[in-house]
């Protein structure tokens, strides 16, 4: 499949839905991707099973504070230079690039790099949604080593990492990001085709495009949209999709703790004011409860969208008074395995509760 500018609006809309409130504002990354596709032409996207087992693949994406990109605009070169340096250092040609996470802006960085280098991208990602830390990626959970990795900043400065485990690597790249203007692009977690096939959440790029098309084509209230969403999710790796509530945001407060946006939101149903949904936020929407009863939790997806249009709303834009719909979507089965839950269950985010699959609630 060839990715072109024609699919970009849908891809971004779908990816913001799957970002579950995180991932940052996609406006600037989308502009940049549009420029890259215009300048270099379309990008070849392959399915994971098209890769040979001995193929050489690496992940690429942005690390840092999306807020600084409002001033320090990203460039195409920042996505291209680390790829070239990585090939030079490893002495191997990359057969494909793959994304950290499908949610938000990081779904676009591999496309920019691929457009400029001619390397294909793989249809899939390491999260199936957005999550805040590198060790929550399926690649890391499956034991892929984070390095050799190369980071590139706005000026083209390159930094090489040799680090044993992903959690340590995560700390190192965060501090580099801070001293490099707040945002860097990294190429990391190199792996073989066989490793990738075992770890990747497959098909999420093409699914985002399909999801975006459904959201755009059926723009309307949450109740009207629901059957369309259920249809598209039921044929995907996600499965279940529920409308938890349609109502008004009556409370929203977040503050920064330990580098995260932490807080909560409350949504009161239009029809019945006694019905109130509580959402816990840590960059993303992570836990939904009603009167203390669990309605959905990470790694399942919780999505807040504008009630009238079903356009997803980022956590930083959610505010008191908005009329919203809250959807819950089952996560890919991979994240329900014991070893995946060890990295992404609610307790990994500091919540004192056991994960229960959406379908069982």
């Amino acid at each position, binding site marked *: 499949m060839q990715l072109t500018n024609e699919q970009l609006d849908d891809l971004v809309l779908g990816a913001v839905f799957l970002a579950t409130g995180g991932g940052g504002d996609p406006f600037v990354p989308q502009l940049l991707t549009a420029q890259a596709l215009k300048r270099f032409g379309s990008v070849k996207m392959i399915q994971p099973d098209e890769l040979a087992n001995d193929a050489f693949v690496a992940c690429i994406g942005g690390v840092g504070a999306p807020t600084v990109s409002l001033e320090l605009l990203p460039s195409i070169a920042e996505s291209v230079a680390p790829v070239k340096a990585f090939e030079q250092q490893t002495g191997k040609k990359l057969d494909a690039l793959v994304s950290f996470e499908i949610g938000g802006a990081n779904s676009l960085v591999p496309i920019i790099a691929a457009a400029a280098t001619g390397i294909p991208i793989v249809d899939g990602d390491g999260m199936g949604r957005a999550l805040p830390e590198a060790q929550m990626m399926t690649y890391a959970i499956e034991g892929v080593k984070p390095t050799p990795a190369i980071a590139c900043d706005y000026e083209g400065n390159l930094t090489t990492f040799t680090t044993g485990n992903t959690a340590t690597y995560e700390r190192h790249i965060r501090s580099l990001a*801070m001293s490099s*203007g707040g945002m860097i692009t990294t190429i990391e977690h190199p792996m073989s085709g066989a490793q990738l096939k075992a770890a990747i959440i497959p098909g999420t790029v093409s699914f985002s495009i399909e999801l975006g098309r459904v959201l755009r084509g059926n723009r309307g209230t949450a109740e009207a949209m629901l059957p369309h969403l259920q249809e598209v999710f039921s044929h995907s790796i996600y499965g279940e999709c529920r409308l938890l509530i349609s109502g008004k945001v009556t409370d929203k407060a977040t503050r920064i703790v330990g580098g995260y946006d932490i807080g909560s939101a409350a949504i009161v149903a239009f029809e019945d004011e006694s019905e109130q949904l509580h959402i816990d936020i840590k960059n993303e929407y992570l836990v939904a409860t009603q009167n203390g009863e669990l309605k959905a939790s990470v790694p399942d997806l919780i999505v807040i969208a504008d009630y009238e249009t079903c356009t997803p709303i980022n956590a930083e834009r959610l505010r008191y*008074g908005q009329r919203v719909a809250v959807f819950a979507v089952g996560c890919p089965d991979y994240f329900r395995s014991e070893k995946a839950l060890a990295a992404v269950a609610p307790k990994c985010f500091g919540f004192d509760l056991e994960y229960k699959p959406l379908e069982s609630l």
Partner: protein
Amino acid sequence: MRIGIDVGGTHTDAVLLDNANILASVKAPTSKDVVTGVISALTNILQGQQVDTIDAVMIGTTQFTNAVVERRQLAEVAAIRIGLPSGVDIPPMTAWPDDIADAIGRHTYMIDGGFLYDGWPLAELNNQQIQGVIDDIKEKNITNVAIAAAFSPMNAQPEHAVAEAIKAQIPNVRITLSYQMGRLGILERENAAILNASLLPFADIVVSAFQNALKDQGLSCPMFISQNDGTLMNAKFVRQYPALTFASGPTNSLRGASQLTGLKNAIVVDIGGTTSDIGVLQEGFPRESNMVIEVGGVRTNFRMPDIQAVAMGGGSHISSDGNKIGPQSVGHQLLQKGLIFGGETLTATDIAVAHANLDIGDHAKVATLPSELVKRATDNMHELLDRHIDMMKPNSEPVPVILVGGGSVLISEDLKTASEIIRPENAAVANAIGAAIAQIGGEAEQFVSYREVSRDDAISMVTQKARQSAIEAGADANSLTVVDIEETAIPYMDDGNTRVRVKVIGEVAKLVKQEAN
């Protein structure tokens, strides 16, 4: 005493205020040249008044917004971005609609410079690059320039340095620096600066025309113009920042409604000829939108009130079965085209006159309208408004709803969403009152590290900057109070890095002096 004037699309209103008391109000049609309408409103409001009792004139005008929306009166602008090596693939005016980009010209430049979020230089300024830009601007004979540098709200030195270099070689140049246009977000701030620079020649024309109109009336008091956050700018300031007038109309309408009713928390519906604008009053000020605001299709980061516009106004077309309200409207031609005025078009005003026996126009013209039609159209108008008010309400409780604007006669029945409907006396001139009661504001924003500077010191530093900007705009220093402190930490980053924004507000210096006397 002060005079408030509101220049709208159809009417120019004026009010005479002694402190908060409304002594007189007048309404005149807006003239094509705007000034004639202002003069006529001024003449009427000043009848029987000593001109030397007037301490200030406050004007709210939509002319600059309309210039951008209609792509007229826009000058060509050289847009200079200081931020290389970052941003090379997203030059200025990327993603602008073609027609306005063409109107302003596509004279864009990118050069080295700017800062990072932590104050480290992004790149040093490069004199050779700067000279190249100046040579090109000279050759193209461009005299309006917009300059935007990365993180300039934190450190504006690069914007100033480039501006000085240009002024040294092009003495008649007019320059807008982006850091003076507002917040972080270089693309939106740069867009705001470019729009502002393109309006500078028109701002001279408008301000001079207003000043001459005042002078012709024998008025020698200061003149102020409303900006989008409900505060005022002096004439000199407007000549530099005309774009800050965008959306001042809805803001004035909300502030005026608050003044007229004494309510600090309410929904305000301003029903005009073509649309009903629904806004939310919180503590006497409009709730601000936190979405990116497009002006004429260009993304900007202006502070704008959160307004929901519904396509229903006094001139809205009504379908013959009464089921369809608008969105087409006869607009300012209501007085020619409406049935009650002898025209041929069934409008919302005709329905209201038939339904509620209003004393407007010629009743006989609507006496034969079928009663089901009148009832259905009336119900539909009320339902349409109810639905949109419900979306804007802060919670599900019914709220006081204040109806203002000439089209408020359309609502003659109860609204489900309203705890009460208030139609303040003088509602038709709420905008002019909002302009007249406005104070002068000032705002500043900076990134600080609470590890390096204590929180108190940081806030007082930013507050000082905000006070300075208010005083420059004509505020009395002693009356300034802080109305808002906003602290936003940067996600994913060091806990110490925080964006601090402070807003202060104070009385017009001239009025304070008068009261002291």
